[in-house]
């Protein structure tokens, strides 16, 4: 026992990091699975359909069914493929998109207890160049798609791979340019520093000092945000920029020849990138874990917002669950609802836990909002034509984001000289 203790005291940092990575992977992959459910439900509602509703109540077990199906399908490898590259491509796509999550900070404060003398922060790593690491990973991310298209030894995937590499190179420029304004205002590449620079209020205390509206040491980054978000949607190959997998033109684009779990890996990679981009939008432009409301005593009641959301939601899940006649509906849903409502109640009872949860609560709400936005865009917008895509990237986003950098730099210079 003593040996274990001393081992964990000495190497606790490594053990802790591995545990955190495992936990984050588990959470993100589960969220990914339910993101597909969420997307199908929301798009269905927008199109006046029901969406998945057969497997489990509200189709809640559909992601599990889909995952199992992916695992049990035949893993076909087409003839004449370049085997090494064909197998490498999905691994590259998945690994890189998961790796990008490692630099995202999820909350300001470490957990109130320590792991054998090691502080438990809500991030895996927090380098000073966090944003550059993210861009480096994004820059490599294109290979997954491009190589998949090339290695399949088939016409349509090759066209999809070509389109994606051209598209991602074009939009990477605009994406990188559009965050320079944020960097100028925060004076750092570190994501935590960027968030902390957005603390406080702006415009005589009316609005939070988030980069999107803040005049604090700069200029509101609303143009930068629009450029960034559009470019990021293009980088993640989502509607309306999903040209690499345009089904009306290219069958399924770069992943036409991939079956079974190798296809699922591309799928998971795409949804993980969506989460990363949503987190980046929240962190860079919308104040990260900073609350929407001022930190004055009058606004202190907003600290109970998590409970205010969790308790009614839990009660609704209980109410909804007992209407079902199946075992899952009768037992699991009310149990889940009780747990959610109990967490909400516990947050009121233990103020320390409530204070701790504020940062993650705001950040996760903002991430959820942008994930919804992604789905919203998919349900609303038609796909661009290829020449339109290139025109938007080079002739609109790039010049506009450069202009944004010049204006912001001018304001930053003006303020620092005063």
């Amino acid at each position, binding site marked *: 026992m003593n040996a274990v203790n001393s081992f964990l005291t000495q190497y606790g940092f490594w053990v802790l990091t591995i545990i955190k990575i495992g936990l984050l992977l588990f959470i993100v992959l589960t969220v990914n699975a339910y993101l597909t459910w969420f997307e199908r439900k929301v798009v269905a509602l927008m199109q006046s359909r029901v969406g998945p509703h057969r497997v489990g109540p509200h189709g809640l077990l559909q992601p599990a069914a889909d995952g199992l199906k992916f695992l049990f399908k035949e893993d076909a490898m087409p003839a004449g493929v370049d085997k090494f590259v064909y197998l*490498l491509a999905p691994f590259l796509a998945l690994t890189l998109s998961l790796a990008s999550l490692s630099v995202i900070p999820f909350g300001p404060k470490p957990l109130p207890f320590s792991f054998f003398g090691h502080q438990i922060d809500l991030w895996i790593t927090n380098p*000073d*160049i966090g944003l*550059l690491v993210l861009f*480096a990973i994004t820059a490599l991310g294109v290979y997954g798609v491009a190589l998949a298209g090339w290695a399949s030894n088939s016409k349509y995937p090759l066209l999809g*791979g070509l389109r994606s590499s*051209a598209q991602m190179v074009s939009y990477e420029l605009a994406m990188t340019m559009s965050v320079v304004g944020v960097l100028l205002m925060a004076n750092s590449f570190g994501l935590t520093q960027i968030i902390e620079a957005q603390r406080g209020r702006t415009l005589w205390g009316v609005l939070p000092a988030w980069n999107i509206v803040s005049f604090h040491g700069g200029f509101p980054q609303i143009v930068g945000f629009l450029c960034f978000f559009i470019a990021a949607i293009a980088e993640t190959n989502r509607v309306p920029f999903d040209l690499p997998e345009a089904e009306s033109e290219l069958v399924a684009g770069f992943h036409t020849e991939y079956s079974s779990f190798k296809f699922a890996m591309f799928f998971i990679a795409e949804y993980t990138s969506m989460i990363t981009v949503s987190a980046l939008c929240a962190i860079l432009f919308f104040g990260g874990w900073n609350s929407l409301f001022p930190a004055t005593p009058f606004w202190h009641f907003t600290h109970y917002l998590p409970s205010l959301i969790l308790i009614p939601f839990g009660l609704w899940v209980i109410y909804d669950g007992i209407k079902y006649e199946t075992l899952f509906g009768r037992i699991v849903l009310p149990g889940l609802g009780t747990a959610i409502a109990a967490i909400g109640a516990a947050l009121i009872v233990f103020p320390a836990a409530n204070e701790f949860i504020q940062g993650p609560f705001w950040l996760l709400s903002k991430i959820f909002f942008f994930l919804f936005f992604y789905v919203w865009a998919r349900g609303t917008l038609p796909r661009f034509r290829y020449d339109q895509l290139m025109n938007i990237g080079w002739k609109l986003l790039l010049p506009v984001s450069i202009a944004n950098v010049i204006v912001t730099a001018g304001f930053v210079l003006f303020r620092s000289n005063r």
Partner: protein
Amino acid sequence: MSAPLIVFFVLAALAVIGALSLILQKHPIHSALSLIVVMVALAGLYLLMGAEFVAAVQIIVYGGAIMVLFVFVIMLLNAGEEEHTDFSKLAKFGGLPLALALTGLLAAAMIHHGSAAPNTTSPDTLASTSQLSTMLFSTFVYPFELTSFLILVAIMGALVLAQREKS
């Protein structure tokens, strides 16, 4: 052996294997992939020396942008496996001695200037982005601006070449 030294040898081995594979691979795409491995291993070496910014930029610019263009062009031309020719007499007889001479020269220079092992004791020398940018815009401002001018000329050249003919 200390941990940084082990990491250094792993990355160095990766870079050398990648470079060898770049030359020995028959297919252009495989060569390009090997080159990406070299770039990423080099970035790891920079990181080991405490040059975070340079490491990230190495991956973004070389590993990302430039190599993506290489891969894109290879895919676009749909280049097949390359054929080996032995036209060059110089390569046949002078190749090995010249390579050995270059290696010897480089090794001599490195030994002359001390250890080539990673210098992990002074991580601040290149680490800070602000230091790097201050240097770039004060001491090295003329080389920096000249290089960007050179790139601008290249961009304009590409535009002229790619321009549609006026009818």
